[in-house]
């Protein structure tokens, strides 16, 4: 049977706001966010769990929303890129650093990378280059070669962070 018609109504928190969504068992979190909640900042680059473009935070941990069924998120808290900006739409320090260092080009991979780095910087405010590269290694960026986005993260980490020659 390829179609499922049963639906479930579930409650979850998205970017701090309680939301109720009605979904099929097979509906992926990425699709719920993008289609039902119109949070289109979360992107789909592969839909098979490799590229990291769809990364959001679930209860504070990076997770691939293309691999998560929405029904599994009852009562959980989801954060997406739309939650990062500061009041008045100003960029937060990580976002600002991405702009300063030209850490993005087409911007398609960027929301996922920002979410992974957000999780890292919350746990470890001063990661070194190795930690930053490890944290974003689950993301594919075809545009930048990563160097400028790694520099962006390092600048937030610590102005004196060691940059390997």
């Amino acid at each position: 049977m390829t179609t499922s018609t049963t639906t479930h109504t579930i409650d979850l928190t998205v970017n701090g706001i309680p939301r109720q969504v009605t979904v099929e068992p097979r509906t992926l979190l990425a699709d719920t966010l993008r289609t039902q909640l119109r949070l289109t900042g979360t992107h789909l680059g592969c839909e098979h769990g490799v590229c990291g473009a769809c990364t959001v935070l679930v209860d504070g941990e990076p997770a691939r929303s293309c691999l998560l069924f929405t029904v599994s998120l009852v009562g959980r808290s989801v954060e997406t890129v739309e939650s990062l900006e500061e009041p008045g739409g100003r960029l937060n320090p990580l976002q600002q650093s991405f702009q300063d260092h030209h850490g993005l080009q087409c911007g398609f991979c960027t929301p996922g990378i920002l979410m992974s780095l957000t999780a890292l910087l919350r746990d470890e405010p001063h990661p070194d280059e190795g930690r930053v590269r490890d944290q974003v290694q689950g993301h594919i960026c075809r545009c930048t070669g990563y160097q400028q986005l790694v520099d962006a993260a390092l600048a937030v980490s610590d102005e004196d962070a060691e940059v390997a020659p």
Partner: protein
Amino acid sequence: MIGQSTKRREDLRLLRGRGQYVDDLDLPGVASMAVVRSTQPHARILGIDTAEAAAAPGVVGVFTAADLAEINQPWPVHLSNAALRPNEQRTLPVDKVRYVGELVAVVVAETRYQAEDACELVAVDYEPLPGSGHLSVSRDLPVPIHEDLGDNVAAHAVQTTGDVDAALAGAPRVLRETFSINRGGGHSMEGRAVAARYDRALGQFLVWDATQVPHQARALMAELYGVPQDRVRVIAPPDVGGGFGPKAGKYPEEILVPWLAKLLDRPVKFVEDRYEHFVSCTQEHLQLHRVEVAYDDDGMLLGLRDVFEHDTGAYASSLIVPLIAGTTVPGPYRIPALHIEFTSWFTNKVPSSAVRGAGRPQGVFVMERVMDRIADDLGLDPAEVRARNLIPADAFPYPVGLTFRDGSPLTYDSGNYPGLLEKGMAEIDYAGQRERQAQRRREGALRGIGVSVAVEGVGLGPFEGATVRMESTGRVTVVLGAPPQGQGFETTYAQICADALGVDQDTVDVVTGDTGTIAYGVGTFASRVMATAGPATAAGAREVRDKLFRSVAAVLEASPEDLEIRDGAVAVRGTDVAMPLAQAARMSNVGAPGVTMPAGTVAGLTATAYFNPASAGYSSSVQICVVEVDAETGEVEIVDWVVGHDCGTVINPLLVEGQVLGGVAHGLSNALYEESLYTDEGVPVTTSFLDYPIPSARELPRIRLYDQQTPSPLNPLGVKGAGEAGTLGVPAVIVSAVEDALRPHGVRIDTCPLSPGLLGDLISDAQTDAQNEARTEARTDTAATAGI
């Protein structure tokens, strides 16, 4: 302003998740199109049964060639070339499929989930034919892929200059080598995407298309629909998630979505997923080069013959890639006699077309392998052999003697290749690196140093245009035909316009890629936009400035020469007499209805300029890379890497650095990681990122950039192109470095990409050979002592 590392304004929306990519557009009532794709490399279509799919939940319609005959005529040839044999392509194949992934039928449904479900219910009855997954198989395929052609040759072309036969016959030294290089897909992180609605009031198709070439897409749609071009408006949204070449192609889905939107009277969209990108988005395939090189005892080149085969996939709409590959071979070197010849083969693979580099990485790879082999043969340093053969800085314009893919003579406009190489050698401390290499070798490490020098045809014609307008708000609008896919056009063209017009760049807005806003355009590809749209923008801005000054001068009773733009107003220099820009614009653009304009004022503060360069320009790059190879695992570790690039005048250094770094990453991925693999019959075996790795931040090393700016004489800004620059020298420099590292093992590398598996095999083969040799020698020695 020009030359300033202005931060990108695009980032403010992209970083906040507020980009508007095609799949993000809010189109009420939109239905999703999903595609039934061929599962066969080569087969006749005997029948398609859509009944079950049509009855599936949510399905709005199922369409095959039989249902859409009205728009299913053969596509016009994209770029005709006498050497290219006509091969018919239609939106929907009528009688046979020619590659796995070819579009066979489509389903439109309420949701994408439902559309994909229903695709599985479409039953296609195939009669399989033998298929070809390699150009060598195509030679003898019993049923040709395009049967009317009689065989699988797509094109054959030869270009020569000088007498290569004589050079080869008379040269002190001749090398004969065979090199193969396979590249892969574009893999923009956003796949292809197109959405459309039909506006009945306007009688117009409104199409949002993540394309690099909106005006070309409009032309094809209008032709196939049989409507005038202004009945189709194609908008490449400002946010497109990367292009890299494949999005400059034309695809059946682009034709179907707008047409179905009209037929179904509701918006329709198609968004390619990654599997579809692997099997249905154009990519580059194998090239096999057989090279003969004549040179003297000092390593000076006397002549070169390169006869190569190119895999073009199932259809060929142009010869772009092999033409560029062949004409890139001579590169930065003086070669008195050249013979470049290629045969392009149809195979049962997704059609081949340009991917960042578009044949250039292949050409550079071939020439740079040759330079390394000459160095090896003569016991010279590889950098020295290159330096000896470089075209001197005072030899420009330099005619190579061939014709480039733009149809104009392959004549390098400007450059300083020796300067760029010397700078790179100083940057990496080449002599010091050779000493450290010797030291590391003594310690048992396999360390190598590679060098590559490349010349890159950029800024291709025919033209690009820009409209510049002073708005009644006092802000300025620049309208470009060419769309960005991450390059930052909104920022760089504001810089160019502000510079020429004399206003603050923050008051300039840039609109791109909408056929409804500028009549003509060609598109974003071949590192061409800066050298065409850049000068057009500057010319438009200067014309608006001229009109503005004449107009304001008339009212202020001043001379235009005495005016300047200051604080958002046109002011008389040295006085506080001024007219705000907004007022000047209202005067010229709105006026008072029915009232004559003041004498001397100009109506319409707007100008549209097109720029058509006399020929392509030529950027250049040097890469020097130090690697260490792990003999056990075949892993390549990058120790240091400098990349120097000369793209003429630089508008925004920060953004050019980004282009070069991203290009290098793509090149490294081509050199060591990604490779599209097919069975001999043409079944693709790499169809997800699980079996087709693209390097992450863990694999990508830190790259050191340096630059040199040799302005181009071909346009008033002196600009060239930078988009592909980083990529083209990378396969060459990595293989050069790895071969150098493995020199103690006597390993020769003639092929790229170099997977760890392949490298491991090369090393163990070399070790086995060495052991066998040692054993043979030992036996001979024993035999000798035994007196045999």
